[in-house]
């Protein structure tokens, strides 16, 4: 057992070192000496223990030896390792000298949150900015899913790993073997990213910008290489392309295989997709009306562009900045907060509660009312035409309760030190747990998280990872049940 786990860590460290080599390449291209040293150093620190473990410990390749709970531990610890290692270049290049700040920034990257503590992004070297965006791309589809896709059969049930990391209550099998599914998911992810890069290039972006933004957009992360975010480009074409791709990044990736196989009707017949589409359209319409009647907008096209962009960027939990929505009417802001809560589809790169859970919850309420009115009713809650198992319903309820309780506890903890005010702290906790990025008031799209104390930043980082790993995966390693009895 120990061999499997250690072997896993060995592989994983080498894998992370491999990821760090990409920004090293960029540093070489742009000839940023400090960054070359920083990345080289980070790679060395990572690869040496990895190699050591690989050479001293044999790795067993028996699939399925590991208990379910250890896959949770592996996934959670892998995220922590990735975050710590990933923050090294920031510290060593001197871009973010403070350790906790760097940790927060990397955490926000890997979890595709996009909250930042930097007030001047453009001052950073290009390779560091590239690494910042790459962390989001890696975290988007799941760093472990990528790992599993590249290295099948390292003694861990890939399915367990994926179900611990993939957003949403269900993991659909597209292929008979799980690592193949993981591979297919990544193929879809890469293809979409490349298409987006090409489209952005056509919109007049430089190659570097196009790659960076395509990565953060497909991952629904929201980091940008400019201080004023996407509004830097000031081009409706780029706004709409990004809106479209953020929407796509928020849909269930398994649905793409239906599309590839030509089953468009199956895509439109999917309950979650329909709900997602309708709620996004409804939100856009409401925000446009609100902006046109109460806001400062006179041009309808601009109002539609801005509201569509902001609605989609929030619902897909990306969090790009175009318009400063803090200045919008309260009604529009309230809609954005609701969207921060719901998030987009399951098995996408987005965070939040997920549309499927919201949908099932609405059906449960309807069912509950029917049950009260007609005590002896026999009826089922259906999803995509299939009856939902009672356990799934319990899981969904548990998730929702856990989500709200974590949100309240998180707000409480960051308020302890007395930073910010209630709105800022509540939306900061909300935006981190849903992996969105900006919040309201003091943490709005034109502000940053710098003013929180070290403790506050750690709590927010915790919330980001917990939110990214669907709460339970990360939180169970802090329960006493986890460590009891037959540990290791």
């Amino acid at each position, binding site marked *: 057992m120990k061999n499997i786990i250690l072997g896993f860590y060995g592989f994983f460290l080498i894998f992370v070192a491999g990821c760090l080599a990409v920004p090293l390449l960029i540093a070489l291209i742009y000839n940023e000496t400090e960054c070359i040293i920083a990345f080289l150093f980070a790679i060395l620190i990572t690869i040496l223990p990895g190699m050591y473990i690989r050479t001293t410990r044999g790795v067993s390749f028996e699939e399925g030896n590991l208990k379910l709970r250890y896959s949770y531990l592996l996934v959670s610890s892998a995220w922590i390792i990735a975050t710590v290692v990933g923050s090294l270049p920031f510290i060593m290049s001197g871009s973010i000298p403070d350790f906790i700040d760097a940790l927060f920034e990397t955490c926000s990257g890997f979890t595709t949150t996009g909250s930042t503590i930097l007030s001047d992004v453009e001052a950073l070297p290009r390779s560091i900015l590239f690494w910042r965006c790459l962390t989001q791309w890696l975290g988007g589809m799941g760093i472990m899913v990528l790992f599993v896709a590249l290295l099948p059969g390292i003694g861990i049930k890939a399915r367990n790993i994926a179900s611990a990391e993939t957003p949403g209550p269900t993991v659909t099998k597209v292929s008979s073997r799980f690592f193949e599914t993981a591979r297919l998911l990544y193929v879809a992810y890469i293809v979409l990213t490349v298409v987006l890069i090409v489209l952005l290039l056509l919109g007049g972006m430089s190659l570097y910008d196009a790659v960076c933004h395509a990565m953060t957009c497909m991952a629904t992360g929201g980091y940008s290489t400019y201080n004023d975010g996407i509004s830097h480009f000031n081009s409706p074409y780029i706004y709409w392309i990004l809106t479209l791709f953020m929407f796509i990044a928020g849909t269930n990736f398994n649905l793409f295989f239906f599309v590839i196989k030509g089953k468009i009707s199956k895509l439109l017949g999917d309950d979650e997709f329909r709900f997602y589409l309708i709620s996004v359209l409804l939100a856009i319409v409401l925000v446009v009306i609100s902006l046109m009647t109460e806001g400062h907008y006179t041009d309808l096209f601009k109002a539609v562009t801005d509201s569509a962009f902001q609605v989609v960027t929030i619902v897909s939990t990306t969090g790009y900045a175009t318009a400063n929505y803090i200045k919008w*009417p309260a009604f529009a802001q309230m809609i954005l907060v609701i969207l921060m809560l719901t998030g987009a589809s399951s098995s996408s790169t987005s965070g939040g509660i997920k549309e499927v859970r919201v949908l099932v919850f609405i059906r449960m309420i309807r069912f509950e009312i029917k049950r009260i009115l007609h005590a002896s009713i026999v009826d089922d809650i259906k999803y995509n035409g299939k009856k939902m198992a009672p356990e799934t319903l319990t899981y969904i309820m548990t998730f929702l309760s856990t989500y709200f309780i974590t949100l309240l506890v998180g707000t409480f903890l960051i308020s302890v030190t007395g930073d910010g005010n209630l709105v800022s702290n509540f939306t900061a906790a909300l935006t981190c747990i849903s992996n969105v990025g900006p919040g309201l008031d003091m943490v709005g799209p034109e502000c940053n998280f710098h003013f929180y104390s070290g403790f506050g930043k750690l709590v927010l980082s915790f919330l980001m990872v917990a939110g990214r790993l669907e709460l339970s995966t990360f939180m169970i390693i802090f329960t006493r049940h986890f460590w009891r009895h037959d540990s290791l």
Partner: protein
Amino acid sequence: MIELSNNKRFFLNIFSIVLILLGFSMAPPLFVALNFAEDAAIRPLGMGCAICILTGITIRKLFDMASTYVRPRINYITTIFTWLIVIAITTVVYFYGRAEFTWIDSFFEATASLTTTGMGNLDVNVFPYSFQLWRSMLNWFGGVGMILIAVSCLSNWEFSGHSLVSVEVPGPEFLKSTVTFKNTYKHIIFIYLGLTAVHFVLLVIAGMDPFTSLLTALSNISTSGMQHISNGVITDLSTPLKVIITIFAFLGSVNVSFFILIIMRKFRMIWRRTEVSLYTWRLFATSLFIGIMISVVNHESFSESFGEALMQTVSFLSTSGYIVTDCHTWPLICQFFILLQMFFGACAVSTGGGMKIARVEIAFKTVSFGLFRHIHPRAVRPVKFNRDLLKPDQLVSANIFIILFMAIYILGALVLSLDNKSESIFDALNYSQAMLTNTGTSIAELHAPGLATHFSPLSKIVMAFEMLAGRLEIYPVLMLFTRSLWKADNL
């Protein structure tokens, strides 16, 4: 006598009793109005009183009332429609009694009075005496009436209903003490009448004038928040009065089974297995935390700040919402605590509102249960509440309720954010919370609770619905929007 179906008889039975009670509630204010020669109040109160009592008695004379068991559906329908009709009648009386009220204002005021929400259109001080008294009496009827509904009507109401009382007070013994529902009603009414009387006497002894004491007693037992004393800000009262008020606000927000156990002399059971003990612990823990925070931040003596924190915590945890201390100067974290307390609310089957302590406790247990299930997917582990096993559907129901509560809170805030009075979403969220939990005091206005005067008619209607939803535990109000409620075969 006219023959009717069983369901109709049941509905008319409850409805006529409530109508007669409402009529009688207008009698004392009517005397006050006659005594002080408040001309504007005499006619609406007199007419209302006469019409309600006469209609009630006529219904009882005309129809045969004996009904047998009815389906839960009929219970819910009876509850919601009786409430709506009572609110409608109250609205009419307010409209004709207060010249400055529009129909929407009157509707808001009526709902706020009956749902024990401490928010009004006007300072209650400017009301004539008769209406001040009537408002407090409506508070009392709303609060105690809710307990009666919870205990009897809605028998399958998961956590506030009969099931919980019978869980806490073991079945046979509870039945022995109260053989029929009629007796249960009597017991409960006497308990609360007694409490109100004691409260009144203590206040008079402590030096409050009798009329204000009466209003305070009526409004405080029902956890409404004492609107008649400078809109719920009681910082100027003497310490003994504050202590008395705190104690009785606490008693008002305690599960009714607490009193039944006391009457049955089962003292040990109170601490061993009831929601009340949980509630008390939570109360002390919160006050302790806030007390420490205040004494550290504001450099006050600990005993003093603990006392202040305790009194203020009772006010919000019981969802009364009166202001005892200058809590707007408290540190941020303490204000956040107040916000949480309002959500958690009081005990089930009490006059308080909110999500209810029992449900919140179950939600916390569900979280830990969920995490356990992730580690041991096939394990069977029971979830307990008060040392009793919870059925899976009870567990799910409690959780659904909490999420539903949050959903209504957020959707309510969405509509309220359209209002010009909400400058930010924070205001909208706060007002929504104050309404849904029946507290009436928004956390942004801790220095001086505001009035509903400046809200738009749409907001007022939404707020009234939220108050009613909070008071009736959401489902009956949601049912109004379902098709199956309106089918002809219901009654």
